[in-house]
């Protein structure tokens, strides 16, 4: 009997350290999430088109009526739209995480000998890629409609750094939302409720000085405005003031808190 039941042995896995596998699993899931960008053209187009529409809307429809205190409106606007795009784009992490939970693929990952929380890394890194693509397209359109940046190479690199840090921070917050949400639809309206006020009650489109009391204080001090002002100063070669380090402090602070929090929540949510 023992011989008749000699079981299937299974294919032997490769032998490596835990850390090696954490990186290997992350790589596979980053590949997966980036494949989603390429294979989901509808999504990429909507991510790319939305900022262009905002760009044209504010540049041509509202821009004439807005006082920017010096520079042309299109020059003022680009920093705001870059950051707004990153904010809206980060919701794709929440949608991705909620979808994975709902579809059961996270159960599959958890039944494998992998580090399953790397699924969050996959989604957040894909957000960076998606936002970089849409930002580049947006800047090209902005140049076509009169945007004249003054930044040198170093300033561009700093812009890239600030944008990547902030996008990553928002994506990890978004991952937390995706883990809390009951459904993909819920993610969509909840993220809208957060992102809409944060991006519009900011210095993205108008100067805070034009806003009434309490709103002005909020708009001047909330993190989105710090990032916008930092990027605006870099783009237009203006003094950076406190904005640079405030933008980075917010981003890094959010990342330091949200990455472990999301990982713990992932374990809890995934085990119900």
């Amino acid at each position, binding site marked *: 009997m023992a011989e008749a039941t000699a*079981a299937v042995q299974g294919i032997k896995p490769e032998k490596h350290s835990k850390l090696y596998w954490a990186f290997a699993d992350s790589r596979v899931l980053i*590949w997966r999430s980036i494949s989603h960008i390429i294979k989901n053209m509808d999504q990429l187009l909507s991510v790319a088109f939305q900022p262009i529409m905002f760009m044209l809307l504010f540049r041509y429809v509202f821009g004439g009526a807005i006082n920017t205190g010096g520079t042309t409106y299109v020059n003022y606007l680009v920093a705001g739209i870059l950051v707004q795009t990153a904010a809206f784009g980060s919701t794709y992490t929440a949608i991705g995480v909620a979808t994975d939970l709902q579809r059961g693929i996270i159960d599959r*990952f958890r039944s494998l000998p992998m580090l399953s929380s790397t699924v969050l890394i996959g989604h957040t890194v894909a957000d960076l890629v998606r936002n970089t693509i849409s930002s580049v397209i947006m800047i090209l359109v902005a140049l076509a409609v009169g945007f004249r940046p003054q930044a040198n190479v170093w300033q561009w690199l700093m812009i890239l750094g600030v944008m990547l840090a902030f996008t990553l921070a928002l994506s990890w917050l978004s991952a937390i939302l995706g883990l809390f949400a009951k459904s993909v639809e819920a993610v969509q309206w909840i993220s809208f409720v957060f992102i809409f006020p944060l991006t519009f009650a900011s210095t993205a489109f108008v100067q805070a000085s034009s806003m009434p009391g309490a709103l002005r204080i909020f708009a001047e001090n909330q993190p989105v405005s710090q990032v916008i002002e930092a990027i605006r100063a870099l783009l237009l070669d203006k003094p950076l003031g406190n904005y640079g380090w405030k933008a980075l402090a917010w981003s890094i602070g959010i990342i330091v808190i949200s990455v472990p929090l999301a990982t713990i929540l992932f374990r809890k949510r995934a085990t119900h």
Partner: protein
Amino acid sequence: MNAITAKNIHKSFGSLSVLEGITFEAERGSVLAILGPNGAGKTTLVRILSTLLRADSGTATIEGFDVHDQADEVRHIIGLTGQYAAVDEFLTGRENLRMIGRLYHLSKKDSWRRAEELLEQFDLVKAADRAAKTYSGGMRRRLDLAASLIASPPVVFLDEPTTGLDPRSRLAMWDIIKKLVADGSTILLTTQYLEEADQLADKIIVIDGGKVIAKGTADELKENVGKEQLEFVFTSDKDYKKARETMFEDAVKADAKRRSISIANDGGVRKLKDLLQQMEEAKINVEGLSLHKPTLDDVFLKLTGHAAEDAAQDEEEK
């Protein structure tokens, strides 16, 4: 040796008690079916055995590894196919399989090779380069099962593998499962289809309300309700009622709508003759008569008592 053991597993969600002391074991290379209605706790049990969920109390082992304390070892040797086909919608069939192979920590070479073998084996070669979202329900299920087999795991969990499939896809799935068994894998299968357990399983565990209410081979379970069943269909409701009350109070199955009563027949032709004579004398008119082997349906209904209740309700309504 037992590939799967479960000892006194309890699990509740808040105040809802789902599993109330499940104990069983599955021999290596065998197919064990967990049979039960919706809400019996089948999926919860599979989630515990496949390391996705922690039991409140009790222990379970897979090939000797504890599902909680040695979860990593367990995950290397199990394959799980869930109730909802968990494949990546945007990736192609081939990409899905290769990805799962890599996440099982197989070498790239092994992952690629197994992906091709499984695409072939599961008749997915033509669809291999299409996104999984374009697949039909049956194809998705096959891809999902293929993904769980990429590392040739010795223990495979199939949670309701054919729920929601059309009859043809179901038969195809059965063939695939039968082949797996022939290869020597240990399979734990949950199902609410009695025929499925009958077709595939060496041993069946019937659970209801979080408890094991019966275990044995299909034949052993069937013997509970007699070797054969006689089904009488009566001419009118009056005949049915009279027969039910006077002659067949211990019927295995009674259906007032169809005016049919099934009884266990262990007395052969002679008993049949006697019964017909009795009915003749009592002026109960029989329209039809058939003899059939009991199905697991009969077993389940008898074990859970649901059949008797249903029949009683039917009669109250009359």
